[in-house]
């Protein structure tokens, strides 16, 4: 009974949509959300009137679901969810839609993320650092200069280096590999190839992370449609079935530094066993991993804790070419958040769908039947198993 999954393959992603990704969209987030949503609904072969649920996630920087639903002229919607959260919620938003569909509440749920992450509110900048005083958990972080995700994740990477000998050059392999994929992706913000030397010579943001270890601040939006599987089969594209999903985990964060045993065990170690069991797969069945890659190190940590390589060997694993398009487990085939752009992780889910459809053009990986997508924020992460066959 443990692995019984009533939602398994009951829903599927049937449409994907994008706005252009840029440094300055010139549009308010409401327009970005609407444009990506229209694109996704059209891609699914549907009209806005077919949509009966909407889910989004944001941190006070996006278009509210009720606004987008109204702009789309939705009539029969009965599942409006605005999730407040960041990177850990990219796959949760999809899972939330999948559950609404799986229980029969909705036929087609729209999911989107829209942000002006460069021209508007920037993630790398702490608004709190400009305040006169900080309370709550931040009173123990901001006065010391722990201001942004790059600091927290940098400390995780450092500890991994201390315990396992991971190197900054191995981080560079992640940056270089994902950039080589972005070269093949006309949507990507960063398309010129880079070398390990370029990585080594890029400036420090927070040692052990250099500029090229950090994702791209991006303006843009992504959207997708989650449909009931029996309807999905009649739509234009092969459905990307949602075989299982999860959000959870515990692990290191700046907020509870004394409440975990170590700083090198991350959320996938806690959610992967159930995630794989509910999908009826093992890690070796996964053909493509759209891992959340706000920073290079996050790829290494997830490869280990999802079980693609033994603990501590993620650095050599990426340096040996395993995450390349022709490697044992391709990662970031769109260029990832590092090079395609940072639409808070949702763009990586869309890439997994394109790969499952076999429509990823020159960056297509052969024979993708099962894909993993993930999101990560603080000490929690979410993940999806997507399958070409139900």
């Amino acid at each position: 009974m443990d692995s019984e999954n009533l939602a398994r393959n009951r829903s599927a992603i049937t449409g994907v949509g994008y706005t252009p990704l840029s440094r300055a969209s010139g549009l308010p987030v409401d327009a970005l959300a609407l444009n990506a949503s229209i694109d996704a609904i059209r891609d699914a072969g549907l009209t806005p009137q077919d949509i009966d649920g909407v889910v989004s996630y944001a941190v006070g920087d996006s278009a509210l679901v009720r606004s987008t639903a109204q702009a789309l002229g939705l009539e029969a919607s009965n599942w409006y969810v605005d999730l407040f959260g960041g990177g850990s919620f990219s796959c949760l938003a999809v899972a939330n839609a999948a559950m609404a569909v799986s229980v029969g509440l909705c036929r087609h749920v729209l999911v989107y993320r829209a942000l002006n992450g460069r021209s508007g509110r920037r993630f790398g900048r702490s608004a709190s650092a400009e305040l006169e005083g900080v309370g709550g958990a931040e009173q123990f972080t901001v006065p010391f200069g722990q201001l942004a995700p790059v600091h927290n994740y940098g400390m995780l990477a450092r500890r991994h280096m201390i315990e396992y000998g991971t190197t900054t050059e191995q981080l560079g392999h992640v940056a270089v590999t994902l950039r080589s994929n972005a070269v093949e992706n006309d949507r990507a913000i960063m398309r010129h190839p880079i070398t390990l030397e370029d990585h080594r010579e890029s400036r420090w943001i927070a040692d052990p992370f250099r500029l090229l270890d950090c994702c791209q601040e991006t303006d843009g939006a992504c959207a997708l449609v989650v449909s009931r599987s029996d309807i999905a089969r009649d739509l234009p594209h092969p459905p990307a079935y949602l075989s299982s999903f999860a959000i959870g985990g515990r692990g290191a964060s700046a907020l509870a530094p004394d409440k975990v045993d170590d700083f090198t065990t991350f959320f996938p170690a806690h959610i992967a066993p159930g995630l794989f069991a509910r999908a009826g797969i093992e890690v070796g069945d996964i053909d493509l991993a759209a891992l959340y890659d706000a920073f290079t190190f996050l790829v290494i940590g997830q490869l280990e804790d999802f079980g693609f390589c033994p603990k501590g060997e993620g650095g050599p694993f990426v340096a040996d070419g395993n995450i390349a398009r022709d490697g044992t487990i391709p990662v970031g085939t769109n260029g990832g958040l590092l090079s395609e752009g940072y639409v808070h992780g949702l763009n990586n889910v869309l890439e997994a769908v394109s790969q499952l459809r076999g429509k990823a053009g020159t960056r297509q990986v052969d024979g993708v039947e099962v894909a993993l997508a993930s999101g990560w924020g603080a000490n929690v992460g979410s993940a999806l198993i997507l399958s070409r066959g139900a």
Partner: protein
Amino acid sequence: MSAKRPLPLPDDQTREFWDGCANQELRLQCCEDCETYIHQPAAMCHACNSTRLNWKRVSGNGEVYSWVVVYQAPASYDVPYVVGWIELVEQPGLRILSNVVGCPPDQVQAGMQVQVEFEALADGVNLPVFRPV
């Protein structure tokens, strides 16, 4: 560092920590039932679920567990600076986020022995920071 950095705003759960710092003492929350130290302050002991918590002064001795060297920050922070986790001697895994001072950033090492000292951020507001011994 500049004094224009944000000041901590203590609440009823954290005031004892900051009062301790103002008195040049590192005081941490401690469980009355199982004597586990807790940081950041919490409403419940994570080791035994007790809610009978009090405060104790600790030695301020520890070692560097992990860190970053920050090169890009708002003007009120003097870059580069070291922010990291210090593991205190009182208990395995008892970690506090702080700065390592009095040491070139590129000389910081894992396991480096450090001791607390107090840096005035504003009148009556001290930050606990750590210096190699």
